[in-house]
């Protein structure tokens, strides 16, 4: 055909070979089935677990989740693509999320974002060549009283100014969450061991 058409008859295969999801991951997803009336309802926990395990949710992962939940893969990609939280391609080890909603914007959020871009040498939705950081913007992080707000993975950085950016990036524990956090949706295994390995 004369014009450009995206071909959806072809599968996207990221990795040839055996199943992506380990038995432990499958087991953890199955452990949510009892909580709900339908297996389909375990979709969000499943997506969190898979993303925490693989770093993102590739098409193969969506197919395997669909198989486990006995739903069509289109129902999985529907949900995955709705939430910006879920990634369909590899991201850096740490995600820096700069708030771009009103409060942060008026308090200088854009300057903070530009500083991150400058220091990391990447643009929005990009990942540093060493795979350490990905940079994204997001709508209100529900922390307007401490605008401008930045998240590094799950750790909140409040009242960030451009001049703080270097120090934040230099801190190896810049994503260490000090308050109690739920491990409900974490990859199976010892999450503490995972933290100290970083």
């Amino acid at each position, binding site marked *: 055909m004369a*014009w*450009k*058409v*995206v*071909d*959806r*008859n*072809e*599968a*996207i*295969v990221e990795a040839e070979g055996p199943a992506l999801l380990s038995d432990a991951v499958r087991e953890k997803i199955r452990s949510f089935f009892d909580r709900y009336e339908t297996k389909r309802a375990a979709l969000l926990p499943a997506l969190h677990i898979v993303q925490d395990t693989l770093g993102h949710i590739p*098409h193969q992962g*969506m*197919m395997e989740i669909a198989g486990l939940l006995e*739903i*069509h*893969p*289109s*129902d*999985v*990609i*529907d949900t995955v*693509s*709705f*939430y*910006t939280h879920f990634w369909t391609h590899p991201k850096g080890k740490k995600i820096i999320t700069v708030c771009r909603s009103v409060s942060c914007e008026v308090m200088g959020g854009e300057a903070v974002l530009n500083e991150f871009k400058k220091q990391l040498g990447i643009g929005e939705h990009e990942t540093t060549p060493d795979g350490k950081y990905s940079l994204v913007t997001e709508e209100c992080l529900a922390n307007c009283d401490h605008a401008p707000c930045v998240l590094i993975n799950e750790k909140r950085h409040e009242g960030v100014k451009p001049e703080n950016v270097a120090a934040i990036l230099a801190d190896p524990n810049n994503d260490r969450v000090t308050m109690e956090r739920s491990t409900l949706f974490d990859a199976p295994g010892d999450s503490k061991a995972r933290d100290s390995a970083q």
Partner: protein
Amino acid sequence: MPKITIDNREIECRKGISVLQAALEAGWNIPHYCAHPGLRVVASCRLCLMEMRMPDPKTQEPTWSPKLVPACQTPVRDGQVVRFDSDRVRQNVKRCMEFFLLDHPLDCPVCDQAGECHLQDYSYRFGEAESRMVDEKLEKPKKDIGPRTLLYSDRCVLCTRCIRFTQEISGTHELCLVNRGTRNEIDVFPGKPLDNPLQGNVVDICPVGSLIDKDFLFKRRVWELESASSICPGCARGCFIRVDHCDGTVYRLKPRYNPKVNDWWICDEGRFGWKYVHDDKRITAPVLHRGHEKTTPKWEELPEILRYRFEEQMRKNGPDKVVAMLSPFMACEEAWLLIKFIREVAPQAALAMGPVSEDGENQHFPVGASGDAVRFTILKEKCPNRRGIELLIGAAGGKTLSFEEFVEKSAAGDFSAGWVVGGYPAEWVDKAAGKIAPKFELLVVQDIFPNALTDAATIILPSCAWVEREGSFVNSTGLIQPFERAISPPEGVKRDGQYLYEIAGLDGLYRAGRVRELMNATIEEFAAVFEAPPMPAHAH
């Protein structure tokens, strides 16, 4: 029946329907995209919003509700008062249309849907000539989402009818809504294309030009097409269809609403099963074999030739050596005329049933459904009129044969004169049947394509495809359903109904309704045919 008041006019309506449906049935032209009577209500397009009178929560005085409410999601209640004819309602539609057109490419000149597009229709009524949009339009891609269907995402109004169809009717779930907000798009999972036996219906219910049938793409502008009401001959179910044609060529088949059989849907097998009609291998002239000589008799001479030849056989070989094999692809009227002729010249003639084609198993939808949950069925019996032919053979009485018995007895030389009707879209003469011809002294074969029997026939009569004929089929549940003719047969071919009418000794033009009147004198079933209630004029 509840009575409701719309725009100061009181109407009576069916119980349990929505105000939108009631208004459409009473003739109002209410804009709507997401609502479809065959699908779950989502009330997402906001086009059908109306004003409604409700008791004030404090004073219980009936007052106009402060907010507009979706008519598609509001069930009718006795005494309800609503209005569409108001500035607030019109303002709402206007604003909705502005949003629907925000990123629309306005490519009507090259869009297949142009002329039957509800984005065009509603824009014409409620839209603005100028767009106030100052930003760049978002460009969404065209997607090849399956072997038969294209998706033009940039024309989509996100009504989600197509998604709900794959969830609720086909049960195959291929379609989904990806991304969020302005970036929403209909999509399939890569590598899991839209490919199920009912997929063509998503093109029909798409209110705009977003889902497009590759088979019809760029073939014709829709306003050039004419339509005939017909019945799908693809299986014994007998779905109501519309044949869209132009210049003697069929371009597409579309479903017609029939609450007793197919609702709003048809299957792909039926939808695309008409291609054989325009196959150039068709038989296009009658042929008379005299020894080794082949001639083309004039149509006017045929009734006499045929009558003479059969009577000659009667004199020569006795009254019980004549047989007629009727086809489940014949219309009831045609079969009745042939029986009338045969039993007139040979009152003891045997009547046989042609082969009843079958393929696979019955298929029920949504996939996996049974009992009351079934919304659509494709039958394995792949011919439209077995029940009708059985009914007529039964009513004629006398000697009757199954196809197997017919072949067996013919092969044994039990008959000297026979009339065999085919008309099957695919090869139907099996090995055994192919060998019976030499046993006949007179063999008339009426068929659409050449085969082993036509090759050996004394007289070949060309048969027409169902879109070239008119009559009725009796479906698997016993409904007698009429079909109109859409196009003319190929040059040189006379309609089966017409020549059978003349051969049966009747004068004038063959009209199916007229023949049914004659049939009704002896077969009471043909007193009336089944007609479905029409769809409201402005429903879609």
